[in-house]
Structure formats: C-alpha cells, structure tokens
C-alpha cells in the first residue's frame, strides 16, 4: 500500500507514455503519429520532474522563509528536453507537409500502396 502511494505518480507517467507510444506505432496517419510522439515525450518529462520533487519542498528559487527546495537539476534537463521535443515535432511536421505535397496523402497505407502500384 505504501508502494502505491509512493509510486502512483510514476505509474501514471508510464501509462501516459504508453498511450503516446501506442499512438506512434498504431496510428496510420503521419500527423497523428507525431501527436503520439509528443505525448510520449511530454510524459517522460513527468517522470523526471516527479523525481525532482521533495516532500514539503518549494520551487528552487531563493526566497525568504523557504529552506527546503526541490532539486533543480531535473528541471534543467527537462527544459532542454522540451526544446528538443518541439524541434523534433517541427521537423516532423515539415516533412509531413512535403509528403502531402508530393504524394497527396498522409495516410501510411495509401503511401505504401502508391509505392507498390506504379
């Protein structure tokens, strides 16, 4: 039971990751895949931020009356990761636009069908 209270945050983070991951693999639509990817990544951020939290801590900004701070390092790592995430998403979307322009569709099965037919 104490496990459940101490770990539920991780479990939900993992659940969310897997929902995103499922979307990446299962979806046939190229935009939807990227949406899944961005959910997957965002959920990994939650894993990191959760581990940085200290009980009764506060945001790691020096201020009067606070002496317990959460760990700033995971925050810094995730700031970096968020930027990496948006960069990947942007490049992916740019590719999707070009694919649409050239092949007229962004559904994976139709793209494969095109490859086979001519």
């Amino acid at each position: 039971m104490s496990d459940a209270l101490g770990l539920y945050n991780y479990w939900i983070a993992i659940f969310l990751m897997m929902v995103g991951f499922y979307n990446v693999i299962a979806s046939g639509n190229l935009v939807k895949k990227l949406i899944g990817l961005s959910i997957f990544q965002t959920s990994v951020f939650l894993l990191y931020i959760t581990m940085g939290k200290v009980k009764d801590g506060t945001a790691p900004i020096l201020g009067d009356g606070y002496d317990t701070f959460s760990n700033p390092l995971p925050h810094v790592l995730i700031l970096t990761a968020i930027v990496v995430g948006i960069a990947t998403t942007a490049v992916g979307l740019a590719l999707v636009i070009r694919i649409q322009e050239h092949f007229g569709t962004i559904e994976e099965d139709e793209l494969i069908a095109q490859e086979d037919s001519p």
Partner: protein
Amino acid sequence: MIHVVDMTLLAFLAIVAIAVTRMTNLFATSVLTGVYSLLMACIFTVLDAVDVAFTEAAVGAGISTVLFLATLSLTTQREKPQRSPNWKALCVALLTGGALVYGTFDMPHFGDPQAPVHQHVGPHYIGVSPTQIGVPNMVTSVLASYRGYDTLGETAVIFTACMAVLLLLQHEKRRDEQSTVEEKPDKEAMAHAMILRVQSKFFIPLILLFGLYVQFHGDFGPGGGFQAGVIFAAGIILYSLVNGLDKARQIIPPNVLHGLVAFGLLLYAGTGLASLFMDGNFLQYRALAEEATHGEHIGILLIELGVGITVATVMTSMFFSFSGRRRS
C-alpha cells in the same frame, strides 16, 4: 492536499490522452494535445518545477499547437478511421509499460528526501549556487552556468531544427510569393475582423513587453531566454495571423530573421569563446570580470539573450515557413 491536486490532474491527463487516441478528427486531437500540455504544465507547477511549467505551457500548448494546426490546414483534417485496435502495437506498448512498471518497484518513493537524487550533486546546486553564481533562481544557475554546455547544445538543436525546416519548406518560395500576394491577401489576413485588429494593436506591445520582462527577470523568478523567446514569437505570430503573413514579412524581412537566428547561436558560442581569451575554460563566465559573480552575471545575461534571440526568431521563421506554404 498536494496528493489530491496531483491525482486529479493526473486523472485529467489520462482522460485527455485516451481521448486523443480515440478521436479521428485531427483538428480536435491537436487542440487536445495543447490541453494535455497545459495540464502537464499545471502538474509541473504542483511539483515545484515552475520554470519547466512555464516552458511547457508556452511551447507545448502554444507553439506546437500552432504548428500542428498550420500543418493540418495544408494537409487533411481527418484521420482514416481504424477498424479495430492495433493488437500488435498494443502488445508492444503493454510490454514496454509493464517493463517500466517492473522497474519502478525499487525506485525511491515520490518526494522522499533520502532519494539519491537529493543526496548527490543536487544539494550542491541548492546550497552553493546562490552564493557561487549570485542568482536566486537555481534553475537559471544550473541551466546557464553549471550545465551551460547542455544549454548551448539545446540552442544548437533549435538552430538545427530551423535549418531543417528551411531546407524542407523554404525552396520554391520565391516563385510562389508574387502569386500569393496577388491572389488572396485579404482572405487569410482576417482583415475584415475589425475587433481582432483593434484588440491585437493593444495587446501585441503588451506581449512583447512581457517577453522582455521574462527575458531579464529569469535570474530572480521563473523565466529566461526560452520562455521569453517563445512569448516574443507568440506576439509576432499573433500579428501575422491578424494582419496577414505578407505584412509580417515586411516588418521582419526574412533576411533579418535568418540573420538573427544565426546571431543568437553565435552570441552564445561567442560568450563561451570570450571566456577563453580571459584565461578561463570554455563558457567560464567567471573569467569575464574581476569579480566572479559579476562575471557570471554578465555571462548569463549574454547567453540568455542569445537563447532568447534564437528561440524567438526560429519559432517565428518556422511559423512563416509553415504558413507561407499553400496547398497546391
């Protein structure tokens, strides 16, 4: 209390994530992804990661939603419905998730102050950074100084993304440009939307002002180059949504924009190199001035500026590239 808030928000997240999976309307899913990011930002706030929350809200709910919607307007708004869940993918996801859950059982518990994370390295940042760097916001200290090299890498990532997007979307633009200007300058510009225009006139300066505040206040509170850059970009994007892309391009010509994109990264790397010439290691801002903390201040100011400029211009130029592309 924190557990209740946390759990409620997490439940919302789970619901949104499932809704995203089930919906086939891509427009709605994109917006829901924005909602997801916003909820995530709320959780980050609850978990004390205010800087991260700020960035997630600005990037995840703001810019990335804009980019998704811009893409959808060029492609399609509906996903082909799938008949049944993809069992293979479901198995893979369940397996991966199961493995991770298995891995959690030896993890330190949520909020445990005895966790290794809070015992090694971490306490140093909390204990020493305010005096060593002289900046109250420890996230800024770690971001800009202790792990400044990571942040340089991150700026390079953003720059790379900009190069990639331009490589993909910029070409042929010159030919298109004239034709689009003649064809439909008004339709997209929402020029008829008087109320919007009047209000945006009032708001855009405020947004830019807020961006500056976030940029320079990052040492003392949540904020810094990234957040400021994104906010600045949001202001410009709002302008171009209301007044049309061409007007926005007149105000910030692509040449200037691309120059600034490069300038930001150069400023960051240049600050790093400057400390070499002052007998320090790369990125050792302490060497920039007589007094160590003074040097840190100068260094952090400069590199945050570099980050801010790069992020703002990259986001803007990405938006221009995305929306400058018309469906053929």
